[in-house]
């Protein structure tokens, strides 16, 4: 479609609008890019006051940690091929090896395996190969760019951040599966029922959506801490203390997420023509059979998108997890707060930066893979009203 002549823009306007975009992209990406750079430098470089020192890292280089010109060239070449492979071969392999109907699962496994292989090649195999080469080459092998992975090693190794990572994964996986199971049923019911009751349920859900989470947590805490005593008459000695239990937190996050989930899924189900399930009903299916055989095969785009947002809620949550879980099974985001208290030396600070980057990396991958779904999810609720 060509732009009508009258709508064409003057050069000045084009410049201004493109300049604004460039500025926005810089502002949007800069903080994330910068903490990634900081996390690879020794503390003195990371908190240096000149940006150049942070980028090049003279102190890190002086400590013998750095990349030579050869390293950089080989690294860039490997990076280029890795990225090209990710966009050409990987999708094909995912399609080929994942069982039919479970393509989403295939993508998740594929992305995880790819990330793991990437880390292995980049941070284990390459240094092993390039180390001897650098020592042979002399001046070309001298490090020019300071870079160290010691903070990541400290965070994931000594500080056992992988425990927090596993807890986060447990909580988010639970939140995503349960909210989708419960939410699709409710979303479908609400989309196909035009009754006043359905409308009032949706309005009530909207009010629940507005509640600040601290209000709800204030309601849970006294009961969760004393739940063993309260439940004793019913469950006897087996009654659990809900405080500090990951599955209790999953239940809480699922419920907090329900209002949003059912609104979103309802708008997706409204887009599926109701003639589809009516036809199945005429053929003698019950509502549940129609849902299972006719709706389920076509609902996946909406479910994936809603699942992404449930994932973000579970993964990003600070308030609920920090108040309802104890130190033994803390998730990643509240665990970062633990660094504040110990943050006495600059090494601790850079370790906190490295932990923060570690938390952000999966989200970055998520946007790369699912950009289209996130955008469609954001617009689904809005454009339809």
């Amino acid at each position, binding site marked *: 479609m060509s732009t*009508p002549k009258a709508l064409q*823009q003057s050069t000045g306007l084009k410049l201004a609008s493109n300049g604004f975009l460039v500025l926005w992209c810089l502002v949007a990406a800069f903080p994330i890019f910068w903490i990634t750079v900081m996390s690879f430098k020794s503390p003195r470089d990371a908190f240096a006051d000149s940006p150049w020192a942070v980028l090049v890292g003279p102190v890190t280089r002086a400590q013998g940690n750095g990349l030579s010109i050869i390293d950089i060239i080989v690294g860039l070449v490997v990076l280029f091929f890795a990225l090209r492979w990710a966009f050409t071969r990987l999708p094909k392999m995912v399609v080929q090896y994942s069982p039919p109907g479970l393509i989403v699962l295939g993508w998740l496994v594929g992305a995880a395996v790819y990330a793991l292989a990437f880390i292995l090649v980049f941070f284990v195999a390459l240094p092993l190969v390039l180390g001897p080469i650098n020592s042979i080459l002399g001046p070309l092998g001298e490090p020019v760019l300071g870079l160290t992975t010691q903070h990541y090693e400290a965070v994931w190794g000594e500080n056992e951040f992988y425990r927090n990572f596993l807890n986060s994964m447990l909580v988010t996986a639970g939140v995503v599966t349960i909210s989708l199971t419960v939410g699709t049923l409710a979303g479908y019911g609400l989309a196909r029922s035009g009754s006043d009751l359905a409308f009032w349920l949706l309005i009530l859900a909207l009010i629940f959506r507005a509640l*600040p989470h601290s209000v709800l947590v204030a309601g849970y*805490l006294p009961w969760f801490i004393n739940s063993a005593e309260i439940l004793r008459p019913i469950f006897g000695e087996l009654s659990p203390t809900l405080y500090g239990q990951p599955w209790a937190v999953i239940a809480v996050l699922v419920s907090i997420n329900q209002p949003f989930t059912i609104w979103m899924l309802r708008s997706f189900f409204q887009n599926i023509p109701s003639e589809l399930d009516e036809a199945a009903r005429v053929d003698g299916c019950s509502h549940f059979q129609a849902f299972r055989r006719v709706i389920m095969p076509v609902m996946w785009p909406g479910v994936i998108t809603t699942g992404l947002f449930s994932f973000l809620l579970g*993964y990003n949550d600070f308030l609920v997890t920090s108040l309802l879980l104890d130190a033994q099974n803390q998730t990643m985001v509240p665990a970062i707060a633990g660094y504040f208290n110990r943050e006495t030396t600059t090494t601790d600070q850079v370790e906190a930066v490295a932990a923060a980057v570690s938390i952000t990396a999966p989200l970055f991958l998520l946007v790369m893979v699912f950009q289209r779904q996130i955008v469609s999810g954001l617009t689904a609720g809005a*454009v339809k009203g």
Partner: protein
Amino acid sequence: MNKKTFAAFVGPSVFMMFIFIALPLVSVFFESFKITQPIVEQQEVETCTPGFIGQTCVTEVKTVPVLDENGKTVTQTEWVGLQSYRNVLQLDKVGDAISSGNWGDILQIDFWKALRFTLMFTLLTLPLVLVVGLSLALAVNNAVRAVRGPVIFISLLPFIITPVIGSLAIYWLFVGDGILTSLLERWTQTNISMFAQAWTIELLMYFFRVWNNAPFAFVIFYAGLQTVNMDTLESAVIDGASRWERLRHVIIPHLMPLIIFISIIHLMDVYRVFEEIVGFRSQAHVISLQWLTYDFLVPDDAGNRAISRASASAMLTMIGIVILLIWPLRRTWLDHKGGAH
């Protein structure tokens, strides 16, 4: 769909919302009128310290908590009416401040400080986010097709990043002599510390919120722009409408439902402002309503949580959001009624 099937479909979801949203609200409501304290008793305790000739013994009356046979403190719960609300609101101090004419003193009290910040933050970030989001959508819509995908990708990053981490990222750019602070210092030739006074922290918080929320508005506006009626636009051009007039009279009315949608979501989300305070560690200078409740719920040094005060402040927080949302919800209700008939 008959009532029974509807109930079967919606049942699990409603059940979960009832257990974990409705019941906690009722519980908070009742807890806010009660107070649970350890029972204490007065005991005469004789403490002796070895002295030069004989022991020096001091007898004093101490208040100690009563322990049960398991060694736990015995607590008692009593109804105190509005006492917790009084503790949170501190109306007597407010009265003093008003009668002495020092209105600023009201903002020294935690609750009023938090209320002032939360409301101002919610209402001021709204126009900022709308304007930045709309300008981005217009700019991307004008741009070459090839750059749209990458720009949307980069724009989504601040939106999906964990809010605590996002605010920390900005904190690290400015903390101490972080690169941006030293850049500002070189530029203005003054010594700047961004996290030492309230107004600079608030400024950064506004920046963070717009950075974090504008992408959401942008993506929605961008989708809305794709559905603008080209015929209307062209007839506006033929009628001699300038670019600004077209924006004002064609595009913005077309986007109005989206503007209302974004505003409602924005009110809900920004009213619970909290993560910035954790990330910027600003509790000494700037606090929000949700942070106030959180602070009551975190155990103090003795391990006690101020549940009753937390409940009172939670109830007050809830009343606030209900008041903020009455007007938009009424509108939805009228639309629904209008649509039904």
